[in-house]
Every structure is written in C-alpha cells, then in structure tokens.
C-alpha cells in the first residue's frame, strides 16, 4: 500500500508541536498554547471559508458561545470542567446551526453582512445582560475549578498539552472531513454551486453542516480558552475575533488544512513584535496582508501547494 503522505505530514506536525514544550522557553510555550487554541478556531473556520467558500464575519459569536457555555455552567451551575467543556461546544454548535439556517438564505456579500449582524447582536446581548454575563469587565473562572481528571489546567505544562490535544484532534478531524465524500461536495459547492445542484446534490444541508461544524470548532476553542486562561468576557464576541480566524486562514492558505496554524503563528508573532516597536501595530498586519495579496494570493501554504502537485490537502 502507498504510504498516506498527507496523513504522515499532519502527524509529523502534531509530533513537532508536542516536542516544542521541551524546546521553547516558558514565555513562548505560553504563547504557543494560546496560538494553538486560536488555530483550532481558525481550522474550523477554514472548513467553512476555505473549503465551502462561505465567508462569515460572525464567528466571534460562536467562539463566545463556547466560552460562555463553559464559563456560565461552571459559574452558576457548578459544573465540573469536564462537563462544562462539551457544554460550550454544544452551545456554539446549536447557535451556529440556528444562525446558519437563517443566514444561508443569502449568499455572497449578504451572507457576510447577515452573519456580522447576528454576531453584533450577540455581542450587545452579552453586554445587555451584564448582571449575569459580566460582559463589560469579564469574569474569572476560579482557579481551583479549572481542572480535569486531576490535571490543573492553570499549570503551564498541563495547559500546553491540553491546547495541543485540542488542536491535534481538531486538525485530524478536519483532515478526515476534507478528504471524505462530504469534503468533496463542499469543494464542489465552492467551485460551482449551480453545477453541484444539477448533479443531484442539495447544497443547503451541506452548507448548514459546514456552518455547524465550524461553529463547533469555534465553541471548542472558546470553551478551551475559558478553561485554560480563566477569563470570560464580551470582548471575545467582538468583531476582532471574527476577523482573526479569517486573517489566519487567508495568510496561511485558504483550503489547506494546515494553513490556519501557519497563519495563526505568523500573525500572532507579527503583532507581538510590532507592539514592541509601535502602538499602531495593526498597520504591520495591514502591510503583511497587502504583500500577501500582491505576491502570494493563495496564502503561504496555498502557494506552496501549487508547487507540490496539489497533494497537500
């Protein structure tokens, strides 16, 4: 049997990420944990945007739904972290399914606007119920409750491994999805929806599944963020968190499974170093995007894929 080199590559990346905890100094290890959580968010977003061709500007809401789904059940219902984490995923997936069912009545720019409006409405709703959500200043999840099966998630090493685990599962699931029958249909919808319909596929359930699945990723990332870093707040539902996964995907490579990871690492450190130089650090991100559009429109890995016969999934 021919070795599955795509699978091997992804496993190698996962192994290399794991090894990073022994190589990196503590400060960068903490950064990488944060990057991996955000990359998980963007990996799901890539299924929707990169593979299905649907550009959502509202995924911050699903990230926040995961965050609040975990945070609120812990705060008000005293759920253990082990139950709160899936609660966050379920909350985000259901919300994404409902909003998707409505927003998918539109396409193109209208889809962007509708998802953006839902997310803004959600953001304002979190602030409106400030009494319960502590939306404006956020709330902290008590450190003692942030443990799963005896592992203290606030511990740097445990936190890194937890973030790595979530990202790894997310990456392998994404790889399986895009190489599955469903993945082929998603790409077909992106490439030519009308043609796909005339080949006997109803695009709607496929698109809705892509929205819900990307919502589940956003929820997992949001819940993980709450558990690993202990903070929950409305700012995570703001437009910035809808734009970030889009940037990661664009920079790393749309429609490449590993793209969001590369994008997340590059942009995170770009902002990190730009911040030391200037307060107008976003201008550096802007310049990077302009350069990207001029010289590597398919993103870092997207451009690389064109040189490798397209075997990179």
């Amino acid at each position, binding site marked *: 049997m021919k070795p599955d080199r795509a699978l091997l590559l992804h496993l190698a990346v996962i192994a290399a990420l794991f090894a990073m905890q022994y190589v990196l100094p503590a400060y960068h290890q903490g950064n990488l944990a944060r990057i991996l959580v955000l990359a998980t968010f963007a990996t799901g977003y890539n299924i929707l945007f990169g593979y299905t061709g649907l550009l959502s500007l509202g995924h911050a809401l699903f990230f926040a739904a995961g965050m609040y789904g975990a945070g609120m059940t812990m705060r008000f219902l005293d759920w253990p972290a082990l139950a709160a984490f899936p609660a966050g995923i379920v909350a985000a997936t259901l919300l994404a399914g409902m909003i998707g069912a409505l927003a998918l009545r539109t396409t193109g720019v209208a889809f962007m606007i509708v998802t953006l409006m839902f997310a803004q409405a959600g953001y304002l709703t979190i602030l409106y119920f400030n009494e319960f959500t502590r939306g404006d200043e956020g709330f902290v999840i008590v450190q003692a409750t942030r443990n799963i099966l005896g592992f203290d998630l606030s511990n740097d090493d445990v936190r890194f491994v937890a973030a790595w685990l979530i990202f790894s599962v997310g990456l392998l699931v994404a790889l399986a999805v895009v190489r599955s029958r469903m993945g082929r249909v998603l790409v*077909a919808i992106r490439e030519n929806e009308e*043609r796909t*319909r005339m*080949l006997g596929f109803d695009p709607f359930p496929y698109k809705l599944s892509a929205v819900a699945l990307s919502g589940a990723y956003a929820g997992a990332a949001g819940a993980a963020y709450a558990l690993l870093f202990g903070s929950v707040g409305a700012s995570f539902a703001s437009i910035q968190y809808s734009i970030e996964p889009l940037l990661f995907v664009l920079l790393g490579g749309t429609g490449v499974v590993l793209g969001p990871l590369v994008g997340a690492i590059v942009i995170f450190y770009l902002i990190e170093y730009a911040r030391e130089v200037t307060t107008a650090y976003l201008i550096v991100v802007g310049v990077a995007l302009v350069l990207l559009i001029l010289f590597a429109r398919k993103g870092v890995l997207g451009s690389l894929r064109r040189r490798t016969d397209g075997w990179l999934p």
Partner: protein
Amino acid sequence: MTLLSARNLVKDFGGLRAVNVEAFDLPAGEIRAVIGPNGAGKTTFVSLLCGRLPPSSGTIRFEDTDITRLPAHERVARGIAYTFQITSIYPNLSLLDNVMLPAQRRASLNGTADAAARAAEALERVGLTDRAQEMAGVQAYGHQRLLEVAMGLALSPKLLILDEPTQGLAEGEIETFIALIRDVAQDATVLLIEHNMSVVMALAERITVMNFGEVLAEGTPDEIRANTDVQTAYLGG
C-alpha cells in the same frame, strides 16, 4: 410509453412570456431535438423541465409522477440529467474528480458502492480516460464539452438533456460526438437543443421547433424540412 410530458407550461419574466408550451410529450427511448431561432425559449423550456427554473404555471410529469414542484436535485435523483450550454465544470479539479461527484451521487442513490467504476466508465465512454488525472480547467474546449457530457452520463440518467452540446466544436469532434450520443441513446432518452442542422438531421428521430416560446411544429426530420411555417420562422417571412 411517455417518459416526460408537459402541459400548459408557462414561464413569464416580468411582462415577457418566454415559454408557453401547451403540450409536449417525449416517449422513452427517443432522441428528440429542440430547434428554433435565437431567443425562441429553448433553454428556458428545458430549464423548466430539469428544475433549474420554476414554471409560472403548468405541470410536468416524469414517469407518470408530477414533478412540477420538485427541486432540481430531486429531479436528478429520479433520472433527469442536464448538461449546460455554457460549459460548467469544476476547473480546479481533475477530470476524474469531476465525474466522481455525479458517480458518487448515483451510487449512493442506488445504494451501491460502485462510484469509482461508474466514474471510470463515464470517462471511458467519452474517450477521456488518458487524461483522468489532469485538471479540467486546462483542457481544450472540445474536451471540456465531452467532460460535461461525461458528468451527465455518470448519473446514469433516464433522460439526458443536452443544451447545445456541439457549440464551438470542430468538425472532427462533432463526428465523435454524434457517435457518442447514438451510443448513449441505447439506454437513455435524449433531449437535445441544437443549432447545427447536420447534427440534428443525423441524430433526431423527431424534432420540436420552437418560436417565440411556443411549439411551432413537431415531426420527423423529413416533415420538419418540408414544413413551410418552419421555413418562414428561420428565413423570415
């Protein structure tokens, strides 16, 4: 046996009545050509049949079932395949992946696991097997047209609707194409919109002539050739 029939089928675009067909019957196993001057409503008419457009009024029956309200993808599931006038393929996918999609759809509808075999057979029938791994978008126009037909064939349709399939093909390619459609017609009914009269005369058992959205005449190629209304519509009165 009638495979497909339409009654009082009307499509209005604002104030324009693009299609107004009182009666259209297509027997199973026939190769039927639809001809008519530009703007006669041919593409709109077959778009109503395959479900790309909803009719303003009227009924369509397929295998004695009313399909007027069925969405396009469900009509495809029942055996109606449509190939586009303007080549509509997936340019960034390989030829094999292009035919894999409809092959998978048919396999899952039939509950069989023969998608790969179906896809290979569809490419074989149009003679594109050698190029299976190449990208569709870089193929010559003639090959893209053949791929378009192969995508229809991979669905194993009962009715294959071809919208101007030979448009833009070279003479030699048209010969191959005529042989292909004869082969397809062994086990499927073919409805063909076509401008090239030599293709129509070579293939069609019956011809429906449309003008201003209505059926002007219908008959065998010889009857149509002799019909003075048709001559007037084409040559001007």
